[in-house]
């Protein structure tokens, strides 16, 4: 079975490298202009250039979001920007504005054009139109598509399709929601979305309030399409996309690593996985996910079970990321840059690109600066030396074992 591209998000250069190390075939990122998610730590041109070089060295690709719904003043510098992206070796831009797509084709013809989910493509005929008029190379399907629709669209599409497999979901049709604009004046279509859909609302019938606590909300559970990976791969979807340019390094590492293993296992066997194997992969995926998840529209109508009416209940994720390996010593120890509280005698595990996770009990810990032996870490960004009973490498992630 052909392996689709695993496409991961990155909010900065460090996360882009993490995604590639943990198995992403391609990373999508936003520059400082022309991109949604203006509050992500967006990439400078130098960062994009470095990301491209890093990706090339690892056989991966860089896609750049140029997916703003532009106002007149937003076009300034567009041509030069697109030419730079092409020069750096960016594989594709993800765009929603026809003018931006047309300009890219004209001034930077080596760039592939991927039609953004902001266009809410939900049928193959719309893709035919976009192919005929803008010569797009790929269509990112709307998150409103069911699995049956994804299959049929992909079958009839004149270009590659890309589908979301994991992460936050717009509850409304992407690109057509102005809740944030109204509530905060922050333009959702120019990167300022305040996620007002996740706020609480009273419902009235004429003047009488109905229901009550918990209040109405449109807050969606995150998408987790692990159980749809085989159908998506069988349908021939070219790229499987993880959402989350605002997410942490830990999220990127966990989710990318977990889906990498899942895709590889399905591709190797050419069959749907057993319930037991799927449970193993799902457990891994959920280690990085701090919201409850659902299968979105893949299973049909996305009803009550896809919405969150209560406080977030998966806060463990925020406590699990303990640090990254900064240095590996010859004597069976390594230096960790810490991120969370942990102590000796705790069972911990290493997340290593391309390997199964390995766990151990932390026996000793030394402050790398003072050389003082310590039993507990309380401050983040402390450098500590720990003994590890197996080989690790720089940038590996240390987390709590669960």
């Amino acid at each position, binding site marked *: 079975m052909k392996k689709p591209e695993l496409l991961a998000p990155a909010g900065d250069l460090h996360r882009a490298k993490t995604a590639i190390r943990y198995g992403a075939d391609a990373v999508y990122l936003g520059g400082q202009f022309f991109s949604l998610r203006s509050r992500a730590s967006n990439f400078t041109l130098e960062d994009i250039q470095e990301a491209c070089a890093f990706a090339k060295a690892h056989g991966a690709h860089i896609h750049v979001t140029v997916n703003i719904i532009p106002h007149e003043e937003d076009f300034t510098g567009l041509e030069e920007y697109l030419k730079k992206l092409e020069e750096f070796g960016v594989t594709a831009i993800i765009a929603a504005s026809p003018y931006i797509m047309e300009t890219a084709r004209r001034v930077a013809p080596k760039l592939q054009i991927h039609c953004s989910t902001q266009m*809410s493509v939900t049928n193959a005929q719309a893709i035919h139109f976009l192919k005929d008029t803008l010569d797009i190379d790929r269509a990112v399907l709307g998150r409103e598509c069911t699995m049956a629709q994804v299959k049929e669209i992909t079958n009839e599409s004149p270009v590659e399709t890309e589908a979301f497999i994991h992460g936050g979901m717009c*509850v409304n049709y992407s690109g057509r929601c102005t*809740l944030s604009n109204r509530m905060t004046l922050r333009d959702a279509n120019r990167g300022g979305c305040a996620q007002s859909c996740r706020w609480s609302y009273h419902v*009235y019938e004429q003047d009488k309030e*109905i229901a009550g606590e918990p209040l109405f909300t449109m807050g969606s559970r995150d998408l987790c399409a692990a159980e749809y990976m085989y159908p998506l791969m069988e349908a021939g979807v070219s790229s499987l996309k993880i959402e989350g340019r605002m997410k942490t390094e830990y999220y990127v590492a966990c989710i990318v690593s977990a889906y990498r293993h899942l895709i590889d296992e399905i591709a190797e066997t050419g069959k749907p996985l057993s319930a037991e194997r799927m449970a193993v992969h799902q457990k891994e995926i959920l280690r990085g996910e701090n919201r409850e998840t659902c299968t979105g529209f893949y299973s049909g109508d996305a*009803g009550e079970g896809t919405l969150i*009416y209560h406080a977030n209940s998966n806060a463990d994720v925020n406590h699990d990321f303990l640090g990254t390996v900064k240095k590996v010593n010859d004597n069976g120890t390594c230096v960790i840059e810490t991120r969370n509280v942990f102590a000796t005698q705790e069972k911990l595990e290493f997340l290593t690109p391309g390997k199964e996770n390995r766990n151990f009990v932390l026996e000793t810990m030394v402050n790398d600066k003072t050389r003082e032996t310590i039993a507990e870490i309380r401050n983040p960004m402390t450098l500590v030396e720990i003994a590890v009973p197996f080989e690790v490498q720089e940038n590996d992630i240390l987390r709590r074992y669960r």
Partner: protein
Amino acid sequence: MKILTILCENKEQAAKNLSLGCDEVILVLKDGCFSALSGCTVEEITAIAKENSKRTAVLMNRLFGQEEIEQAQKTLCELLPQVDAVLFADPALLQQAKLIHMEHKMIYRPETLLTSAKDGAWWMAQGLQSVQISPLLTKEEILEIAANVPHAGLQIHGRLLMSVSKRKLLDAYASYHAGTSLHEKDGLYLREDSREGRMPVYENAYGTMIYTDYVQESFAYVPEFLAAGLERFEIDTYTLKDEEIRDAITMYRALLDGRTITDIYAQAHADLPLSSGYYGQKTIK
């Protein structure tokens, strides 16, 4: 050309609004729209168009799923020869219109996506009759597009559609509370917990639509829009009462005909939460 146009639910409304001074009625197509207005069938629209001595347009702005698109394209083919224009959002409809050489009857109306003259010009280059400018723009931005994109339109009055979800959000909430279904129920509003405004919300088979807590008005702006070249001036009637619609048509008609209006709409309809929306207030990134 200047066209005062209005969304209508049925034959009676269409006739009344035309008699009040509209140049065109936009009939809401049943099962083909993101609109809380109830719609007309193809047969009803065809009958209305035949009797109508002025322009008849159809709102068909839904995004269609793969299994629906063939039927939607058939419906479009039935409608196009009978009407003056079809307002669409799904590019698949334009693809079909091109096949039967009727793209000149198509109006691109994607709610929020048309925010620049450059994108407007691209769409017009596809042979369209018109494009509808996003209501999220400032007066200056609208003037810029109107001056550079021939035949452009804008919703000038009524509640603006703020969001559309394919999910049945009201029904899901009712189900969570084990309450009575809120599906296809009129008269529902949302109020954000820390704000006062009430936003009409309606759910039907195609999802949940939320409208602005205010009613857009453009009385002070229409002369400038007209002078800049804007051609289509649209009124959405959702939640508006008959007299509110009547006065809006009368006053906009006068403005479009170059007459000065002396009546003040806001005084006559003091209960309406009128606002000039984003005309004087630019959104931030």
